[in-house]
Structures are given as C-alpha cells and as structure tokens.
C-alpha cells in the first residue's frame, strides 16, 4: 500500500514539474496531443471494440456510436476551435478609466484529476481529457476499475501516443481512489454516482479544489398522447434507443421511466413489445446487439429491484435474468409502486417502468417532487406544453422528441444540476471547465483624476458620485464649476 502511495506521489510530482515547465501551455503541444489522441483512436479501433465487448458485451456499432466516433468528433472539433478558444477576449471598459484596456485570458488550472465511469469507459475518460488538454493542463486519469479491459487498454495505450510526462493513467480500486483524493489537485473532474460525487467534493474542499461532477439521476421521458401513428412509432424507437440500445440501460442520460396518460398506456406497451422484438429478435438473450450487465454486483442489485413482490407483479414484458451470462432482458413494468426502490433509485439497467397519469400535465409536478434529473425527455407536438416544461421543470438538459442525441451537439453544455451534478462540459464548455478566466486590466499613467485621492472634501464626493454613475455630462459641468 505504501508503495502505491509513493507511486502516486511520484507521478503527481512529475505532472507538477511538467506543468511548471510551461510546455503544456503552448498551442503546439495542445494541438499535437489532440492529434495524437485521434491517431490513438484510429489505430486501435479493433482493440477498443474487443475491450468493450469483453467488459460489457457491447456491439461494435454501439461502441463506435457512443465511444470512438463521438470522441473523434469531439477531438476534431476541439482542434478546429482551439485558436479561437485560446484567444484573449477583449472587454470594453467605462470611459472613466480612459485610457485603459480590459481582457479576459483563459489559463490552465494546473494538474487535474479525471475519474471516469465504467459504462462508457472510453468516452467518459477521453471526452474530459480533450477539454483538459485543450485548456493546457497536465492530467492524471483514473479509469473505472469495473471496466477491466478498457482500464488496462487506456493505461497501456495512452503512454504510447500522448506525452507521458504530462498525461498519466493510474489504475486501481477504491483504495487507489482514496489515495488520489488525498492529494492536492488544481481541478477534479468526476463522473459517477451522487454518493461518490459527494465524497469527491468533500475531499476537494480540503484543498479548495474546484470540481466538475457529472452524476446521474432518474431521467424521465414524458410521453404526450400523440395522434399520428408514425410519430408514435418514431417515439417508441427513440425511447428504446435511449434505454436498451445504449449499454442496455446502463447510461446516465438513459431513459429511467416513462410518464404517460392512462388511456395511452396499452397502445404504448404493445408498440414497445413489437419494437423490442424487431430490434432484438424473439430471444434477446441471443442478440449480439445488446450489452450485458457490467458485473455480478450490479446484476444482483437489479435483480433485487425486481424481486420486490409488488414490482414483480408490475412486469408486463420481459423479466428474464441469466446470471451466468450477466444478462437481463429488456423489461417493462406498468405502474410499480412509487415508493418501491425501483422508483426511488436510479435504475441504471434494462428495466423500464411506465407510470400512468390521468393527465399528462401532471408530469411536471411528478418530476418537480423528485431530485433534479440530468435530462428530461419529452415527446410532444404541443407547443404550449413544451413551454410549460421548459419553464416549469429543472434538469441538466431538456430534449424534445428524441433521446441521447444531445451528446452529438458540441455547442450545448452537458451537465447536471442539483443531485445530477455540478458544472458542465463538451465543446467549448470542456475548455472552460478546465480553465481559469483571468481578468486583466491595463491603465496608463496619463489622465490622473485628482478627486480620487484624499484628503476628502465635498467636491471630491460629488465628483466620485457622478463618476461611479458614469454621468459624464454632469461630471463635466462639475469640473467647469457650473454645477453645485
């Protein structure tokens, strides 16, 4: 154990030294590292496919869509925008300070710690890494130990492509995590559960380290009664896409449950069943297109959620559990009790409760009486209802008529609020998350305003009052002796 701690301290010392050398601040270094990251992804596609298949049974299409493809896109986007992001932003100053200039310069925090999660082990490690590199920091990356193959892939491959003096990977379990959190970092970026998020922030408080916490929560999908059969079909596909087709529900922005009007529930369930069949065949267990549960612990956790007798009674589709293969079939529940654990905890697995309401308007209150989710999905064509949802609910983000696609938008901030997280990233927001915005004001020695200085008198008081009001006209009158 002591050796491990020493190893972490050594690595950290080197990262600090590298940062101090200033090399990571140069545009050239940042661009080179981003290019190298793209190269890493291009060269190692097959290895990544394999690692994710081993860890989660993820199909290559899913791996490409949610991990490799996304990260390559983000890295390219960062490369194309970097010069713009790094340019100091000029600010206008009040005339009072003339001649003067103001600007805001983005500077790296220093040495940052990135702790990533196991469900998208490549994406959630490398997406923040792109931001940290773009902003000019040195980085310690701690991949989740639960995605074993991906963690070792990252530890083996990153040093081959990226500057190993500035970007290091440390693998290990809870003990290593604790040791890392004891150290002083200049920024911590954490993806995971609210429980651990709180521990991370407490540890950060000791060193006044700013944190970005990407957490989860129960993301609802509001489903308004749609009239066009075509719209309903698309909606159901998108909901299944946002639930089972992304790591089989083990995703922080996945649909956790559906809110729908009673009268619409039967149609919805029928359609969900047929679509699941279309996607995964008669026997989803044999489908190669669906991920398995990460490990036995989580399998058991999910099994327990379903074991509650009142919950078991609510199963209207699926419910098959195969412990040997850690597989859980896409499962639909109709109106499980709201106080059952399945409706109080984030599900993070292939179980989809449908909660029926008399009127879809009630969904707003339903959501507001629970912790703020990372995302709210809403399928509706009713513009008034849309407006009500936008202003009447609070969530990290809000998506109308689709699921998961927000990750593709570099221009949108990604992050939670309340229980679902602190801070945001993606695109320019990643750069900001890893930068300190330094305000700079420059003045010259000309034009000295005498009334700034003591000893104070009434004239100076009048002068300064007008000055802080930026009332230049009366200021002039005062100076000319025309104003009392």
């Amino acid at each position, binding site marked *: 154990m002591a050796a491990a701690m020493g190893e972490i301290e050594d690595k950290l010392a080197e990262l600090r030294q590298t940062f101090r050398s200033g090399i990571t601040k140069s545009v050239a270094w940042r661009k080179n590292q981003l290019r190298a990251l793209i190269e890493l992804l291009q060269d190692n596609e097959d290895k990544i496919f394999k690692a994710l298949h081993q860890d989660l049974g993820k199909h290559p299409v899913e791996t490409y869509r949610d991990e490799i493809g996304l990260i390559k896109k983000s890295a390219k986007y960062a490369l194309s925008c970097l010069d713009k992001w790094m340019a100091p932003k000029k600010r206008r100053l009040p005339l009072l300070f003339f001649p003067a200039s103001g600007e805001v310069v983005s500077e790296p925090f220093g040495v940052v710690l990135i702790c990533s999660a196991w469900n998208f082990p490549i994406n959630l490690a490398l997406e923040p890494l792109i931001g940290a590199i773009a902003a000019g920091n040195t980085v310690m990356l701690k991949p989740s130990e639960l995605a074993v193959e991906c963690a070792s892939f990252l530890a083996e491959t990153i040093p081959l492509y990226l500057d190993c003096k500035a970007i290091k990977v440390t693998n290990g379990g809870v003990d290593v995590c604790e040791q890392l959190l004891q150290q002083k970092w200049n920024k911590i970026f954490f993806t995971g559960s609210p429980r651990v998020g709180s521990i991370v*922030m407490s540890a950060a408080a000791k060193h006044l380290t700013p944190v970005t916490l990407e957490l989860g929560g129960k993301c609802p999908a509001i489903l308004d009664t749609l009239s066009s059969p075509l719209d309903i079909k698309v909606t159901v596909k998108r909901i299944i896409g946002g639930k089972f087709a992304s790591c089989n529900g083990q995703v922080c922005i996945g649909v956790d449950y559906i809110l729908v009007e009673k009268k619409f529930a039967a149609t919805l369930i029928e359609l969900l069943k047929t679509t699941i069949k279309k996607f995964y065949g008669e026997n989803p267990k044999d489908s190669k297109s669906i991920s398995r549960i990460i490990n036995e612990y989580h399998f058991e956790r999910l099994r327990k959620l379903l074991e509650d007798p009142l919950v078991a009674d609510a199963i209207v589709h699926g419910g098959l559990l195969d412990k040997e293969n850690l597989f859980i079939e896409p499962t639909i529940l109709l109106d499980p009790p709201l106080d059952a654990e399945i409706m109080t905890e984030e599900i993070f697995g292939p179980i989809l409760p449908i909660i029926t309401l008399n009127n879809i308007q009630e969904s707003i209150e339903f959501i507001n009486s629970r912790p703020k989710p990372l995302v709210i999905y809403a399928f509706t064509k009713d513009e008034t209802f849309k407006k009500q949802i*936008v202003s009447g609910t609070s969530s990290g983000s*809000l998506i*109308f008529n689709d699921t998961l696609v927000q990750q593709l*938008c570099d221009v949108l901030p*990604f992050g939670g609020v*309340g229980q679902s997280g602190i801070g945001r990233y993606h695109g320019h927001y990643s750069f900001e998350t890893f930068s300190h915005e330094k305000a700079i004001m420059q003045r010259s020695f000309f034009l000295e305003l005498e009334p700034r200085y003591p000893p104070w008198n009434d004239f100076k*008081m009048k002068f300064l009052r007008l000055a*802080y009001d930026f009332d230049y006209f009366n200021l002039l009158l005062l100076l000319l002796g025309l104003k009392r």
Partner: protein
Amino acid sequence: MGSEEETKKKNEVFDAEAASLFVKELRGTFASGKTKSYGWRVSQLKSLMKMLNEREPDIVDALRQDLDKPELESSIYEVALLKTSIKSALKELKHWMTPEKAKTSITTFPSSAEIVPEPFGVVLIISPWNYPFLLSLDPVVGAIAAGNALVLKPSEVAPASSSLLAKLVGEYMDLSSIRVVEGAVAETSALLDQKWDKICYTGNSRVARIVMAAAAKHLTPVLLELGGKSPVVFDSGINLKVACRRMIMGKWGCNNGQACISPDHIITTKDYAPKLLESLKNELENFYGKNPLESKDLSRIVNSNHFARLSKLLDDDKVSGKIVHGGERDKNKLRIAPTLLLDVPRDSLIMSEEIFGPLLPILTVDKIEDSFDIINSGTKPLAAYLFTNNKKLKQQFVETVSAGGLVINDTAVHLAVHSLPFGGVQESGMGAYHGKFSFDVFSHKKAVLSRGFIGDVPVRYPPYTKGKLRLLKVLISGSLLGIIRALLGWSKA
C-alpha cells in the same frame, strides 16, 4: 407589547430546526414560481435601489460605528458601486434572461437548440465585515437577477451593519423570498446544515473549506470569494508619483487595508526601493497628514482581535526592526498608522499570512523579473498588480503570473468594471461574479434541444450490422458529402 415580542424574538435560538423551517418557507415561495418572473426580479432590484437612495445616511452611520469608515468611502465604495451594479442589472436583465440560440449540426438535423438560464432555487449568501453592504448586496443583486429566493447572513463582526441590513431588507424587500439571518458561528453552522441550491461565501480560505465541505453533503455548487497576499510589483522608469498615489488608494484608501483586493506587499528592485520609499512617504503625508492616527480619512481596525493580530505581526522579532515608516498604534481607538517595512524576511509571520490591515512590507529583488518567481512560489492571490512602462514585462506578467485578476498601472480599480469577471483561483477562490457574471453564477444553463419526428435514420437502431457501422462513421463526423456517399454505397470506410 411590540417591544416585548421583539425581545422574545431575539432570545429565540436560531438552531438547525429554525433554519430548516426558514428554508422550507423560501422553498415554498420558489416553487410557486414567483421569483422567476421578470416582473418580480425588476421590482426587487428597484426596491433595493430605493433602499440605497433613501437610507444612505443610515448606512454611512452604521459603517462609522463598525469601522469608522470615512463617509466618502462608504458613499462611494458601498453605496454608489452597488447602485451602478443594480442599474446595469436592470438595464441588461431582459437580455440576460433571453435564451441563447445554439447552432446544431447536420447529425441531429432537423433540430433546434437553445441554452435557457434558470434560477438554482434557494441560495445562501454569507458576507464579511469589511464591506458589509457591498459584499452582502452585490451577490444579492446577482441572485435576484437570476430569479432565486435567498437568505443573507451578514457578518457578526460588523454588528451595526448587520442589524441595519436585517432591518432594511425587512422594510424594503419581499420577505417571502428574501430574508436576513443575523448571528455568529452557531447560526452559520445551522444554516450550513441545510440543503441549498447555491452557496456564495465571501471571506477567508479556512472557513471556505468548511463551507465547501458542508456544501458537498448536498452536492451544492459554491461561489467562494476569498483573498490572499496580493502583490504589487514596481518596475523603475515609471511615473512614480502617480503610481504611489494609485497604490496608496488601493491599500489605505480601501478600508485601511482591510480589503480582499488590497495590495498586501510590494516587490521592487534593490536599486529602486529607496526612491519608491521616499515617494510613498511623501504621498502618504499629502493624503493623511503628519499624524495619520488623527486622520478622518482612514478607517480604524475593526475590533480588538484584529488589532491584536496585526500588532503581533509587527512585534515579530524578525520584523520589528524593519519598520521604515509609521508603526504608530492606538489600542484604545483601534487605530494603526500606515506602516512601511523594508526587506522583511520571507519566513516571517507577516509574509506567511494575508495582512488585511495597514501594514505594507516591501521586498527587494536583484532583477525585476525575479519578482514573478516570488509571486509564483506562493499561493495564487486574488489580484496581482504591476507598475511598468515596459511592454515586454507586461507581457511576461500576463503570461506567467496566475491570480484572480491582474491590473497593470493601477490597483483595485478592476472591482468597479462590470465587464470583467471578479473572482479568485485556488486559494483565492472559486467562481466569479459582477455584471453578467453575477447573473451567470446564480443560474443553471439548461440545454434545450428540440427535434422533429422526421429525419430518423435506421442506423441508430439495432439489430446492428457492418453497413450500419459504415454509415454511422460518416454520420457522426457530420460531413454532408460523406453521408451522401455512404448512403449511395460509395464509401470506402
């Protein structure tokens, strides 16, 4: 009867239970949506303005009791500065509240996206004693502008100001959403036990750690406005008189050095130090006369604890022989004269903590560039100042010195500029405010993405095939040409 009730109220203990009831009430108001309306925000900002316009004499009075603050300093730095802040919020609020359109890519076509600012909910603002009105109400302006309900906890170290704030807020503001809790450590702890949606704390880095750890329990984001040892670097070849005057204003002219952005110490070259010292002495005399302990234009030290703390810094064996100007103290009146110290050792007490008072050590270096190493070897300050005419040195300063903000050829003035973010980094704080930044720091930026039901591509859905992988590759890359090519089967990927 009325007075009896008042005493009863005062005797009630503000414990965790009371605090939780308090927060519940505010949560109820916030849930009603009242504070979110543009109308409410404007009405509250206007009330605040009215309060400042009508009660400036009371504020000046309270500050005289707590700090013996000169009237001009109170009127300008506490009242006028706040009014400017409210005015700009009132003028810009509509614009700030407007959702920001975001361009979406072809990959999610057809879609539209915007970023909608929404209030966090119920926020806690804990303010310090040195600028009890400005540093209480400036964050309040941001919290109101962003549409939050709030509790303000002013510092008990400035009791007259604290009780005036409680009284004025009661008279002028909407009590269903804006409240003041007075008190010391016990009350603050009771407040910190509650779940807030945002906490803004202005003060020192020791308490900031406690605040952040308390916030961590509820995953509450924090804005921490702290201090640090803000240095001033004096290069040679400058207009020394102007530089010294500006420096004095930032130090003694700001609450007699008891300000978070006050210059803490000077770094200059050995050769230049005597000239600088001469000029500083002259200007100090011009400003505050031959007997500064009697000057009406200087604040006093806030209380005997701080007086003792500052005395200890001066009585340190390593330092007491280094006083080259001032050093006079009056314990009964809690006054300390502007004091200059030359070449104090770097390991002395005065150089290892934030001074926060009228003492100014001058460190000397061989080459002016060495001063940046000294700054970077310590913790990051809230502000760093440089007086120079040398372009290269300016550039080097901007590139190598990390601080909340940098000012070249003046001190402390950046506080009054609303187009610049005001806040520290690491030991000097977390997050920034002022102007639009105040609105932003009290708002959650919600991404809202809207899609239509058309434009669905089957490649997104299982069962997965090789062909889907191919199409997906070009789709994610967002290249229109690539997509067409792949759809036509021409892609070689």
